[in-house]
């Protein structure tokens, strides 16, 4: 499929950022595995190193969500010369392309992300549960990145061999 070079460059920049965030998230995912499942009663027993790893995981989870939802999805639509429309329109287009499993699943992942920036202070039980729920949904988020790689290779024969798939199937 032919494409506009400038928009392709924009996609590449956005996707590179998403991929970088994804690799960092995967690294964090493995680094906190020994703490899971996380329970509130154990929260105050965590050492500074573990707390830092959990913080990094939280930030990277949010960064990847934001990068995909705010930039990369939109640039895919632009590349295919469609009008992006609202966020709802873009998510429906991503579902149609099987980049996201479903609109509902992405919104659920988004809600998990939003819980991290909750306005109210959480109890240790709640903090532990949010982290564990995010941890268990991490692969679903990383699979979205892999889906983009495979889609772009199919549609545009995009030269993205430098982006190995993240999730083993």
């Amino acid at each position, binding site marked *: 499929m032919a494409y506009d070079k400038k928009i392709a460059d924009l996609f590449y920049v956005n996707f590179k950022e998403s991929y970088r965030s994804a690799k960092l998230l995967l690294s964090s995912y493995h680094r906190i595995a020994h703490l899971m499942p996380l329970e509130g009663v154990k929260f105050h027993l965590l050492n500074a190193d573990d707390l830092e790893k959990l913080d990094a995981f939280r930030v990277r989870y949010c960064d990847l969500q934001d990068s995909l939802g705010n930039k990369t999805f939109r640039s895919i639509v632009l590349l295919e010369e469609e009008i992006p429309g609202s966020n709802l329109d873009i998510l429906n287009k991503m579902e149609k392309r099987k980049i996201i499993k479903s609109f*509902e699943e992405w919104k659920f992942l988004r809600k998990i992300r939003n*819980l991290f920036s*909750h*306005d*109210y202070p959480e*109890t240790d*039980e*709640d903090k532990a*549960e949010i982290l564990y*729920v995010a941890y268990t949904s991490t692969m679903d988020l990383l699979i979205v990145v892999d889906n983009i790689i495979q889609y772009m290779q199919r549609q545009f024969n995009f030269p993205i061999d430098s982006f190995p798939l993240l999730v083993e199937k």
Partner: protein
Amino acid sequence: MRLTQKQIDSLLQATRLYFGNTAKIWLFGSRVDDSKTGGDIDLYIETDKETGIIVAKLQMLTTIETVFGDQKIDILVRRRSHPCSPIQEIAKSTGEELHSSK
């Protein structure tokens, strides 16, 4: 209070479904004030449920989306086995408990 009865009923139904039949829900924040416009929807729930609070919150947010659309909703939850935190005290004392129309 700037919620329709339909919205209130959907909140009550979702609260009982995900937080148990003994759970209660309050609306607090700017939406309580009829003279104001806009604003987030701030909800406070008291429950006897001890675990799975976050999953219950996520499920409730997904369910009430059909009624509230993309409006920003924050849900503050207190387990009745825990003492009230300062923010929970404020939410309960300044908020209005939601009741069914029936």
